[in-house]
């Protein structure tokens, strides 16, 4: 069982609100990721981090931002939520290094609904 936690699991908010989705892992992994996934669809990488103070945008353009001040913590923030942000957001982590296999450990996800 993966030691990676996401909160909240479900969130329903109004348009224009600021929200932060929390993600923490206790495995000491350097690499962390945020994926966006609509129900039954493929995963889209929106942000990733190689370690503390390192953040990069993923393949899918997103209006969200991330920070990585501590190894274990990788929060995602939306400054002004819109209905188009309604989706499931999945946080994941992996080991970093030349021999790593790239296996990902996922949290349970945060399902966001913006009204």
């Amino acid at each position, binding site marked *: 069982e*993966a030691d990676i936690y*996401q909160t909240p699991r479900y969130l329903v908010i109004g348009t224009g609100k600021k929200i932060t989705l929390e993600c923490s892992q206790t495995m000491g992994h350097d*690499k962390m*990721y945020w994926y966006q996934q609509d129900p*039954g*669809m*493929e*995963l889209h*990488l929106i942000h*990733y981090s190689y370690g503390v103070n390192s953040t990069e945008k993923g393949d899918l353009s997103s209006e969200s931002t991330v920070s990585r001040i501590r190894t274990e913590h990788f929060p995602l923030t939306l400054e002004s939520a819109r209905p188009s942000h309604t989706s*499931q957001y*999945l946080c*994941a982590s*992996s080991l*970093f290094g030349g021999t*790593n*296999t*790239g*296996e*990902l*450990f*996922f*949290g*349970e*996800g945060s*399902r966001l609904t913006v009204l």
Partner: protein
Amino acid sequence: SQQGEEDPQALSIQEGENATMNCSYKTSINNLQWYRQNSGRGLVHLILIRSNEREKHSGRLRVTLDTSKKSSSLLITASRAADTASYFCATKLDSNYQLIWGAGTKLIIKP
């Protein structure tokens, strides 16, 4: 664009039957991984096969890899209701630490 394409998109079988899902990819890979996702949950890693391997087993799972055809298959034998989930393949390139995902196969096991 997504590297992996999975087929079928959806599969419905009777409990006890075997389920086979396929994944094709476009460029050379370091390894290929299969994940399961129960409805509304995160993904769970099932099995990894390296580019120099042709077949791998884990319990009721059997994965094959054909690098000449750039394809992989996941076989679940003696399916159970609890196997109902979406199954995703993901490829890792030599040049990139990130995984590239397929669109998934939705598997339904009928009791």
